[in-house]
């Protein structure tokens, strides 16, 4: 049954199929992301800051160094 893939000139079909698949994925996940609650978004976005990095106080003051 795969012979048709080899023999037929289906460029247009595959271009449209590829676009459709990608578009569906973009739309579906964009829709889902837009529906996420603000509180949920804020909490997830702040996850990297929930664990302190105590050694950061050892960093030099960048203003003291030339560019």
């Amino acid at each position, binding site marked *: *049954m795969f012979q048709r893939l*080899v023999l037929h000139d289906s460029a247009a079909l*595959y271009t449209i199929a590829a676009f459709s698949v990608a578009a569906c994925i973009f739309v579906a996940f964009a829709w889902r992301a837009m529906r996420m609650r603000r509180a949920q978004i804020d909490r997830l976005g*702040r*996850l*990297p800051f929930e*664990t302190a990095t105590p*050694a950061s106080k*050892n960093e030099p003051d960048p203003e003291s160094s030339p*560019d």
Partner: protein
Amino acid sequence: MPNEKITIEFNDRVVRQFLLATVIWAAVAMLVGVLIAAQLNFWRLNFDTSWLTWSRLRPLHTNAAIFAFVGNMMFAGIYYSTQRLVKARLASDFLSQFHFWGWQAIIVAAAVTLPIGLTRGKEYAELIWPINLMVVVVWVVFAVNFFWTLARRHEPSLYVAIWFYIATIVTVAMLYIVNHLSIPTSLTHSYPIFGGVQDALVQWWYGHNAVAFFLTTPILGIMYYFLPKAAERPIYSYRLSVVHFWSLVFVYIWAGPHHLLNTALPDWLQTLGMTFSLMLWAPSWGGMLNGLLTLRGAWDKVRTDPVLKFFAAGVTFYGMATFEGPLLAIRSVNALAHYTDWIIAHVHVGTLGWNGFMAAGMIYWLLPRLWSKPLHSTALANLHFWIGLVGILLYVSAMWTSGITQGLMLNATSENGTVLTYPNFLDTLPAIRPMMLMRVIGGGLYLTGWLLLAYNVLRTVRGARPVNGSVEVFAGAAEAGPSTLSVSGSFFNPPVVFSVVIFVFACAWMFGGDLVRIAGIAGAMFSVVLAYLHYESRGRRWADWYDRLLVTALPFTVLTLIAVIAGGLIQIIPTLVAQQSQNVEDRRQVPYTPLELAGRDLYVSDGCYLCHSQMIRTLVSDVLRYGDYSRLGESIYDHPFQWGSKRNGPDLARVGGKYSNLWHLRHLDDPRSTSAGSNMPRFHWLLTDPLNLDTLPRKIAVQRTLGVPYPPMTDAQVVAAAVAQAREVADNLRADGASVAPDREVVAMIAYLQKLGKYEAVAQRADGRTARLND
């Protein structure tokens, strides 16, 4: 006691180890890169030795850059950020150490085997099969350590960086295993189970997605953690990061065939690869903008903080590389750019700009935190940034110019497209030599910048006290979060079931016969309508499933794997089923004789495929220059395929019979004796090294197992056939005035080169299969 507070000390020792390994191996990778760039300018820098020859060192450079440099950097970043994001120490100190030392052992093994010519002959998949097994074991250890850590986490939610790490682990495992499936012929040699077009498709499915899932997704995860930390503000849009992740994971895997445009690869695959590559513009730029916009309000810090400088430039280079990639995947652009230095520019925008600068930013940020000591010199780090930036810009602008010049010259025709304007391939070399020299300077500057980093690291670490981070958590905190999914609940739910049903109907529509096709269309349309109606009436269940999926690591991982598998299966399975030797059209390759096969193994071992393609594209200029375009069946028995990806020299698909044996002998001994101005290294050891026929019977047996139609032969017959043909070649050389013993490697190499382009004509049978025309 769920409310009991406990302190968790992170395992930052392994992070420090990977970080230091990154610094060292990156310097090695870059040093080899500068050397091989210089070798293309000055052939004497090959030093007339086999193990320092360009084609042996080039795989060392690429493997070191990908697996040693970016690999170690990735592991450092993943281990540091994951522990903090899930508030748990790495699950096993033993597995962490096994991972680190196992990975270093793999790198050392690669550094020893590649220069001595032990290779599988597939780009970025060159390592021999025992090392492949080591990679699989270490990767499994990494995965176990990672997922075990997730299972012990005290943070219920999985931050988007963790998603990218999960996608990396499962996808790289899948790609690596499939593309390295081989049958050994000895302890150091094997043949891949796929051949010809199948091997080409699998290789670039792997090769493209090695870029996607080894050099991109883990670094994106690192970006989503370290960039907000360095800028001291959350990611610009978490929503955008969600769209970025899913669209990247779904779309990236389909784009591999864009490495094979205008070749003998079936047209439908080329079209799919090109179109999906263009789709990648959207998620890639979404991610880039998300990174850059995270710096909103922090741009004043970029002026002084080298960490933010590196991150801002790294993300910008990500945007440049991901704009250029889809552009190069457009078939007509690819006709100009493929096989030229433009592709080299593209990959170095990614590796030096995106990977290298993100690595530098991460290292400068981590140093004071892992050793509890201020960075030795911020000024030196800033100097590193500017030297590196100038280096990249010199490098890529030189290669863009060189590539476009090469492409234009090699494709140029006159007399209404019937005559090549530059018929000699070497005509292009003088034109691009200045740019090749500028590449050496650019690469040298980048290496200098990295050495400044190494010095800064050394001075910072010397005498410093390593520190491990810690976090206080409530015991059992993870259980207090959102409810998770059961295994059945993960897969038997409306979104997954409807997706699977629609996918099955769509496949029936695409691939089925007349009736199945109609059923596929009807079923797909009906399922879409049904899914919409179900979503409208029970939308809460869809959302609830997704929210719970995001806090349940295992189902999330499995569904991510399914997302990346889908694209691969749709492209690879039809190719494996349909593109077989018994149903190729028009032409079919004539299998190599034992001596020719031995010569081919030498060709692969010496890395000739890295400069010489064996694929005449369906382009006027290629056909005028090299002969009739390559048919799919003409390489159907090639394990591994040799279509190549870069032409530093001319295509060899039809070189057989074009020159005399004597010409090849002289050319291999000293290319400049036959081709004035050539920059090809000498392969003079082929004239003196003895030809080893001991493993040839086993190799023929494996080829037969793989489907190459060799007649039944005893071991003695295999060797006797090789010896007899070697005598013929040596006699021919002697008749032309050259004296070479028949048991030297060069004799097998000449026999192989003279076979290239030989085929038998085939005709279509009524049953759809093909037969020789004289059957």
